[in-house]
């Protein structure tokens, strides 16, 4: 395979004593991609980054950077730079000295360093703050210094470990866009670690969803959101309603018998076979709610248990006999006299488009087996 990847992990496993931090991880990261590692706390994201940077050594497996096996190459000889979670700016150095640090180590000439520091600071809009110390900067500014300090070295790959984690919501959003456009401008491969699914969805070209040290699903933002392959992914990325049951044949085609009385229709070409036990996932925003009009309603009917105003949306919890609680979300902008707000206690009719049903393997027999 003469294919060239900027970073390639092949069956990488990392043990800390008896703790398995990363297990059998295989990733191929193309040049120029914005690649996210997404997963809950403790799933091994930081450990993966640290292995690429050279701070940890894989217990098993191979890591290649620009095609070269980096086994035994210390961090200071890898053409990779890292933006640390808490930035790790040098407190005793000015902004300028922080940013110049990498070039100084490479013995770049003084005028060249000065020129590139100016360039890097302009890129992250920090011109004029050269003489400040890190503690004299806001969180967002510190973040930019950390970025400039890493990018000035023109690494093959930039590693970012939850770089926006310490910022408030609004600044986070602004920095997300800025980071993304910066990445497009410089064209450097970004490997971006986050546990925030929204962040990963908005920024990434490609997402690797991790769970308990393993790869759960790989794909573009649309793929992992619209076509999650495991219950974990459907649950972690966005909310989902889950229904477990057995696939049976009925007049209209295949259905899932969630309960003896409750049957959910399956989309055509779902690939499910009769007798199989599966989980059906439906996103709350795909669930439609309508006030019950007739006296003898058909289909799914439930009673609104609670409604929660979320700003842009309202979330309804609807109790349905045989299915439990179903969560539905409605855009508040769609509320008008024809579709009024629903009140607790109201009877409602629930429905969703057939193709909104995501078919997942039953939990426990997902894409991988877990050994004890």
């Amino acid at each position, binding site marked *: 395979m003469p294919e060239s990847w900027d970073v390639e992990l092949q069956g990488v496993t990392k043990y800390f004593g008896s703790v398995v931090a990363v297990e059998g991880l295989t990733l191929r990261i193309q040049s120029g991609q914005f690649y996210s590692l997404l997963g809950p706390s403790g799933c091994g994201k930081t450990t993966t980054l640290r292995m690429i940077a050279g701070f940890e050594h894989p217990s098993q497996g191979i890591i290649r950077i620009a095609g070269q096996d980096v086994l035994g190459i210390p961090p200071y000889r890898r053409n*990779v730079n890292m933006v640390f979670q808490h930035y790790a700016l040098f407190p005793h150095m000015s902004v300028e000295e922080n940013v110049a640090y990498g070039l100084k180590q490479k013995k770049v000439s003084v005028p060249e360093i000065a020129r590139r520091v100016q360039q890097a600071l302009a890129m992250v809009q920090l011109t004029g703050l050269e003489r400040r110390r890190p503690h004299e900067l806001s969180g967002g500014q510190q973040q930019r210094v950390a970025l400039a300090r890493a990018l000035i070295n023109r690494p093959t790959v930039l590693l970012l470990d939850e770089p926006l984690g310490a910022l408030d919501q609004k600044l986070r959003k602004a920095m997300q866009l800025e980071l993304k456009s910066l990445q497009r401008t410089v064209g450097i491969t970004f490997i971006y670690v986050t546990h925030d699914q929204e962040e990963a969805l908005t920024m990434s070209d490609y997402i690797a969803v991790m769970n308990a040290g393993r790869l759960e699903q790989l794909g573009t933002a649309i793929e992992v959101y619209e076509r999650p392959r495991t219950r974990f992914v459907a649950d972690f990325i966005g909310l989902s309603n889950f229904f477990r049951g057995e696939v049976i044949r009925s007049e209209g085609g295949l259905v899932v018998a969630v309960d003896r009385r409750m049957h959910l229709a399956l989309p055509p070409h779902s690939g499910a076979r009769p007798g199989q036990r599966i989980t059906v996932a439906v996103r709350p925003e795909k669930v439609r709610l309508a006030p019950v009009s007739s006296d003898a309603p058909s289909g799914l009917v439930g009673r609104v248990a609670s409604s929660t105003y979320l700003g842009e949306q309202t979330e309804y919890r609807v109790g349905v006999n045989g299915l439990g609680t179903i969560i539905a979300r409605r855009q508040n902008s769609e509320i008008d006299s024809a579709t009024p707000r629903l009140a607790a206690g109201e009877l409602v009719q629930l429905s969703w488009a057939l193709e909104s049903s995501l078919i997942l393997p039953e939990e426990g027999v997902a894409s991988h087996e877990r050994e004890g």
Partner: protein
Amino acid sequence: MLRPTTDRAASPSASRWLVLPAGVWYFFFFVIPLSFAFIFSFGHRGAYGGIELGFSFDQYVRLAQPIYSKTFLTTLAMASAGTLGCLILGYPLAYFLATRVHRHKLLMLLLVIIPFWTSFLIRTYGITILINDRGLLNTLLMNLGWVSEPVRLLFTPWGILLGLVYNYLPLMVFPLYVSLERLDKTLLEASKDLGAGRLATFRNITLPLSLPGVIAGLMLVFIPLTGEYVVPQILGGGKILFMGGLITSQFVSTRDWAFGSAAAVSLIVLLLLVITVYMRRLGRRAEDPFA
């Protein structure tokens, strides 16, 4: 009614009382004796010892005599050498304890202070047994054939230096250990990530960030060393006089309180001078809000 207690505790009028016990202590045992010394230094020795108050600079003029200024210089030189010795031995030790020891850290720190559990005098006399002409050290060196006759250490400046470093090393190690221990290890990783090897990382990050600890250690060792008189007495055999020894003898044996006070006041002034100059130079480099 519930009242928040936190803002009361934080109010300046309440926290002011916290300094009271220490304030009283310092007033009675530091400010008053020091004032006495200051006043005494302008007086004269009484006919039967003690003090006759007055106002003259006679004692200070006496101090300017070569024999006494030599004592001043000896004191400063020996204290500086002892401090330097503590730093040279202490820094690597503190660095090792802070960065390389992961298990039994407390035990290792305990080992550093265990010598302090024995009396200062006993420890210092103990050294005479080690370094005298027929002591352990010389026996070893001669048996190994490295020297043909005993190395003279006891009753020489080197012997004193050895005793000073031995006794004061923990005072250097602790502040160094603390500053190295709390150094954010991700800064070292950031440095390596940016292309600096181990040595460059030490020079650029570890050393400057441990400077506050270095300064504290130097102070903690240097200041008491200038007042030291037990070690030069025992290991120097009374041949090498420190200011501490001079002052003690004035008060205890010669009973010339005026001269003793003048010597003490001069020593304090001299120390203040040295420290100010040195803080100005090092302090600027260590000016670090995170420390």
